[in-house]
């Protein structure tokens, strides 16, 4: 076999490994119910759940409980199927958390009552969408 062929085969082999691990390590978007099924099947892989924060009439997030030393908190998230779930996050409350509406939590179930997020991504209403120009400047 020529050297070129060996290198070629090597490249293909590495490329296949890369593709396989990319697929294997890729996370997925789930709902809370499918995430719980995964947990019961013994699959502890971190997954993404997209959901909305529960807010009261005045726009305050409800169900927010901040830990005693302020370094962790729990909140309620409603996924796209309408399932409500308590989520624990081991970080201080991010500054723009109150403002955000859609939240993506990346993590897994600890037990039925609690979903532990390793990371949360917040989508804040973009300032571009602000249609009410503040008249306060008048």
């Amino acid at each position, binding site marked *: 076999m020529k050297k070129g062929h060996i290198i070629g085969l090597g490249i293909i082999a590495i490329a296949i490994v890369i593709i396989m691990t990319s697929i294997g390590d890729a996370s997925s978007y789930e709902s809370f119910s499918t995430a719980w099924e995964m947990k019961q099947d013994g699959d502890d892989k971190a997954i993404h759940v997209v959901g909305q924060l529960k807010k009261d009439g005045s726009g305050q997030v409800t169900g927010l409980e901040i830990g005693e*030393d*302020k370094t962790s908190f729990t909140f309620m998230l409603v996924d796209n199927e309408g399932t409500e779930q308590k989520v624990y996050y081991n970080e201080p409350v991010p*500054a723009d958390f109150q403002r955000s509406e859609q939240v*993506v939590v990346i993590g897994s179930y600890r037990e039925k009552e609690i979903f532990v997020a390793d990371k949360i*991504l917040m989508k804040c209403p973009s300032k571009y969408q602000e249609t009410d*120009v503040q008249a306060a400047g*008048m």
Partner: protein
Amino acid sequence: MINTFVGNLGHFMTILAFVSALVTAYAYFQYFRANEIEKASWRRFSRISFYVHAVSTVMIAASLFEIIYNHRYEYFYAYSHSSKALPVHYMISSFWEGQEGAFILWAFWNVVLGVVLINTNKFWEGPVMIVFALVQAFLVSMILGVVIGDLKIGSSPFILLRDATQAPIFELNPNFVPEDGTGLNPLLQNIWMVIHPPTLFLGYASTLVPFAFLMGGLVMKRYSEWIRPALPWAIFSAMILGMGIIMGAYWAYVTLNFGGYWNWDPVENAVYVPWLILVASIHTMITFKKSNTALKTSIVLVILSFILVLYATFLVRSGVLGDASVHSFTDLGLSGQLLIYMLFFLGIAIFLAVRAWKHIPTSEKEASVYSREFWIFLGAVTLGLMSFQVILPTSIPAWNALVESFGGISNMAPPADQIEFYTKFQLWFAVTIALLTAVGQFFWWQKMDKKALKEALVTPYVISVLFSAAVIVLAKVYDWKYMIIVLAGMFTIVANSVILFRILKKSTFKLAGGSLAHIGLGMILIGIMFSSGYSDVISINMSGLTYSNSWEDEMNKEHVLLWINKPTQMKDYTVIYRGRQKKVVGVPEYVPAKFLESTGNVNEAIAVADFKDYFKKGDKVNLVLEENDYFKIDYYQNEALKFSLAPMSQFNESMGGLISSPDSKIYLNRDLYTYVAAMNDYADPDWKEDEIYEVSPGQQFHIADFVTYFDGVEVMKEIEGYTLQEGDVAVKAKVRVLDYDVEKLLEPTFIIRNNQIGKLPVIDTELGLRISLENIIPEKNQFVFKVNQYQKDYVVMKAIVKPYINVLWIGTIIMLIGFTVAIFRRFDEFAKMRDKGLE
């Protein structure tokens, strides 16, 4: 008064730039086809057309900047990206905060590059400028802002606010102009954000140059000659793009609070990948110049680097990333246009390359293991695999979008732990690259066989093993993976240093670019290993609190809660939070916020007490960005104050958020990085119920945990901000509150006028106390105080030690110097051939 002139001018210039770009492309096409007699006149016309385009592009930029600079908030762009309080250099950042501005910046650089090319090339002008003009037409179309039926072409930065929003105010008064804009994202208010985007976009723009030369070469059937003029530009592009990436990383390190300089975020990956490919293409192009191999590889890589820049733009700016990125780019509805832009050039490049493919000279003989071509090729392959490994998962959101556009469902998400996922591959690729550069460099400078190779490599190998052993022992690198990195990095540094010295001894510095860049690479590798691999969170929660849930105790708490003035142990340090500070114009140090009171005007405050020699009580002072709070964190070791850090946070109402930036103590061998993750909000305190204390002068008592002394009262002759009348009695109580090593004197006042009582309470936001003197009971010589508590001021903080991060920064600088040396050398070669009239 609404000024529509500038906007109309800008919009007109956009249309002019678009049309002139198309005309230029057509004219250069005619020039390219014309016979010798007509060539001169077509060339003159083409150049005039391009210069018209150049001037109009500059005018677009000038119009937009005029709108921002003169605070014309009737324009949507100025309203949503800037505000009056911004200093001029941040207005420049406002310019490219929006995507439209970014496209203008890109188009501007292309124009600059085009002008340089016209004036440095004789032979290549026609085809190169056709590609340039077409690219410009696409770029300008992004800001065209033309709507034909349902079709929207581009998003214009020159639209008026009243046209961009449906705010009801405009129905009442169409000529309404807001007083102020909503401001620049505080994260971008950083000096690195003034220079990082132009650098990055120059890098983006310059990838066009080698691509354009290649297209010219393919069309003119000069399949190999394009390399000489393209090479210096490819190196330039890699240098600038690399610099842009590093600036972005450094900006992230000093401004963002994710605790590092690189996060494998899609936005970062999207520039990292084209850069890798660009570097690979430089190497294969150099090999080709030396030995006529790797031409096809070079062609593929040059095409790929240009297309990947467009793909990166598409990923980042089309909104396809959606939830996948922390960076939020808004979808301006340009995704279709961006896609067409990319596919257009991809299509042309593939067509031309395929058509030329069988005519492209290749060398038949197999490269020997002892040839430099072999090693360079392996390096290029490794860089290619490295890129592939990053771009594949980064494209998952695009893949989902593609599947969904065909009606399928794909719920794939990017890897949950991106850092771990990418690192496990990139680490080993980087080690491979480091080893290849070390070996490859020896092949580069001399002919090698098995014996010569052994001889050449033994000394550097032994030296690097010795050095690595020293590093491993001294810096306690006990992880086998990290040992390998140290060894690989050290081997590159030593081997390339040996080459460097030989070059310097024998010939000139001009040839040293390669070895310098590789030494930089070795240092970067070691620097990354230390600063990331051994990054140590020292703010471990040591409060000893146990949590309600048993499992919660297993979680690593990486933040500490610091109450004001309360010493907290953190590894080798004792830290104390000392309160908020502000930056005042003309004062070289931070000023505690309690010395200042806002006047209500932008960035203006009144001093409520003297502060050193800088200002007196009652002086008006100017603040540097009043929204910024700097939290004073004192670090003690052995009871002695070592240093203070001032991590920043900014509360920006119109941006609707709190943003915090770290502060680092920089040592020669490590950084101590500190940021504030959460803080007290005392703007609108929720006071607890009244507590009543009846005390006599001289008595000690407790308010909450504070030891408090009531030292007595003083009868006042005058009170600030209050006119005393004949017969009024005013009494000031002196209450001393002790909080750890801090003693505070609070002086509530009590006034009696005509049997009416007036009380002036004192609020201390740091202690979270409100005290008022409620009553005086002369018969018992007692004074009645009413106290309300809120909570003491606090911050939640994270502190990380990053060892040897300076090795990384120094390595990047050396690498950039190496690139620069190489640019000069390669441009020199090109210029010599050109001046001989050969090209």
